[in-house]
């Protein structure tokens, strides 16, 4: 169960200087990036395709999508999500943690200067004075 004691579990990760959180039940797995192959004429944010146990999945770079600087970090991770029969993987900078966030701690009506489509953003929450943007990745797949 993703929701317990009124809290929803989120995977918190870093893209550039910002922290993002995505509901854990959207995510099927988190893996280290392996070799990509190129995908000609794909969208700008598509890094290519990868092999996940025999399945071929497109890799999208969230850093590029959100206008962050692309730097080669060693802590990079791929977040895999499942949208019915389709699979997507997203390239992010760093895994932070999994944490439960209670609904009452989420601010929903916020105006943000962020390169993220508004309806993909569930809201924001704060932890140790740091803002965590709560991102619905399944909705985001509509914008790719």
């Amino acid at each position: 169960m993703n929701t317990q004691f009124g809290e929803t579990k989120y995977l918190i990760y870093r893209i550039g200087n910002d922290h993002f959180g995505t509901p854990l039940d959207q995510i099927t797995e988190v893996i280290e990036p392996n070799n990509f192959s190129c995908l000609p004429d794909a969208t700008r944010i598509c890094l290519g395709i990868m092999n996940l146990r025999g399945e071929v999945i497109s890799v999208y770079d969230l850093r590029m999508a959100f206008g962050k600087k692309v730097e080669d970090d060693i802590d990079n991770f791929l977040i895999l999500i499942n949208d019915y029969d389709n699979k997507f993987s997203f390239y992010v900078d760093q895994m932070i943690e999994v944490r439960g966030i209670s609904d009452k701690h989420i601010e929903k009506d916020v105006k943000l200067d962020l390169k993220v489509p508004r309806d993909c953003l569930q809201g924001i929450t704060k932890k140790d004075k740091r803002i965590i943007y709560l991102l619905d990745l399944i909705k985001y797949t509509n914008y790719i």
Partner: protein
Amino acid sequence: MSDIVDEELIEIFLEEATDYLELWESACLDLIKTEDKTYLDNLFRVAHNLKGSSRTLGMTSFGDLVHKIEDLITDAKDDVVELDSNVAEFFLFCNHVLNDWMNKIKSDPSYSGDITEVESRIKELSSKKPNEKKVEDKKEEIVEESIIEEEKVEENNPIKEEDKVEEVVKVAVPQPQEKKTEAVNEQKKNRTSSASVRVPSERLDKLIQLIGELSISQSMANESCQRRIFDENFFKNLRFAWKVSKEIQETALSLRMNSLKSLFQRLERTAYEISRLQDKDITIEVEGSECELDKQAIEAITDPLIHIIRNAVDHGIENRKERELSGKKEKSKVIISAISSADGVAIFVKDNGKGLSIDKIRQKAIEKGIIDTNTKISDLELQQLIFNPGFSTAEKVTDISGRGVGLDVVRQKINEVGGEINIKSIFGQGTTFNIFVPLNINILDGIIVRVGREKFIVSLSEIHEIVSISENEVDKTENGNVFCRRGITLPIFELKDILNITTDEATTSAIVIKSGSQFIAFSINAVIGQHSIMVRPIMGKEKYSSFISGSTVLGDGRPGLILSVKKMARTILQRLK
């Protein structure tokens, strides 16, 4: 429907009934063609079974309807009702009604249809009086027959039958045709692809046997592993296991194979119905329906083929008057045939109608700006242009064809399953559509080529040849690069430019593709080898080069893209013009 019945039972019934109705359909078609009474027996058997199983499930009204039709079949069998095309067509109509009914049951198991129309038509038909003379002949026949039947100790009562013949008075009213087409359309909408597959049991037996063999050879190899003895025996077992797994792969894939029988039957019926509607006297011949194709492929080509059949009957075959005027003696004919080969099935739809007018196509192509007035193009190539979007030479749009999906959609759908379509037509003599569908759309024999650091797969069937070539053999002209192959000059393009790959590596080989009658070459950095690969879809959003038809995972664990070089060749050659 009286009771709520187990859903599972209904599903089994529906599956069974679909098969029965297919048999019903084929019996009707045979009946219409030959008016041979033996087909009535088939029809009767099917109706009887349907009645039985529907009543078991408590679908009383469905059962009652079938029962009434069964009565009419019995009457026709016993010559109480004259078996003519009207009756045979009515049976076909019943098939529509029952099919419809079944589709409704799928979504709503308690559905109960309206049977009054069928009932009234049965009444009309069974009250139809054969010609006076015929009645007398028939009477004699009946008496004779009934004597024989009495000897056989059948249930039929000869006295009752004679009574019935005397009762016959009224004249039948002509059939309302519109109603029938409505039923056809309705049925088309409801026809959905079922999720289950019927598999001959011997294939399953073979699969189970192979899996047994695999586990034996594997446990033998395993034992060697545990004892750490890697001798000749171990490698023998491993090779054997590899061989068996290859065989399992083949058998497993064959589970999805279906014969073309039901598809061809559907095509035959479509052709027949349109010919009736337009009052064209057409013989429809079907050959090679035993050929097998992947179920998915059959489903994918069904609509395109129906469209082609409609075209053939509607536009291809002339109406009676035109045919008389053109002095054609032979009967109008549409032949649907299939031939199986090692790598696929070729399906032909041939008619002996009026054929395509080359001049009209040329005129239209110039009008549409596809070709120039002075473009040199062979007649055969010109004919292929009708697969271009928005290309219709039909002067008027009829109900049957000429609008809705065009031939461009037909080609697109067939290309989607890796197939090809072309047309060959002789003006005044007829048209042949040739559709080739590859046998296996999931596994393909491919050549792995390297461009820069990336590896790509090209289907073996799309390659004409591979030549080794060095850069100084390529001549740069103002219209692009060309090179000479056995005295023929052909255009050559760098695959790395088409796919936007940066590399400084020298070209070593080129793959030559044949598109129509033209050749084109694509240069690559290296040929890696030939492999049989499993085609996988690319997960994610479909936004990438249209020359990529799929992907696979290569031996080194990296994904590889499958290039559709035929499409690439076609696109580039069109651009060159």
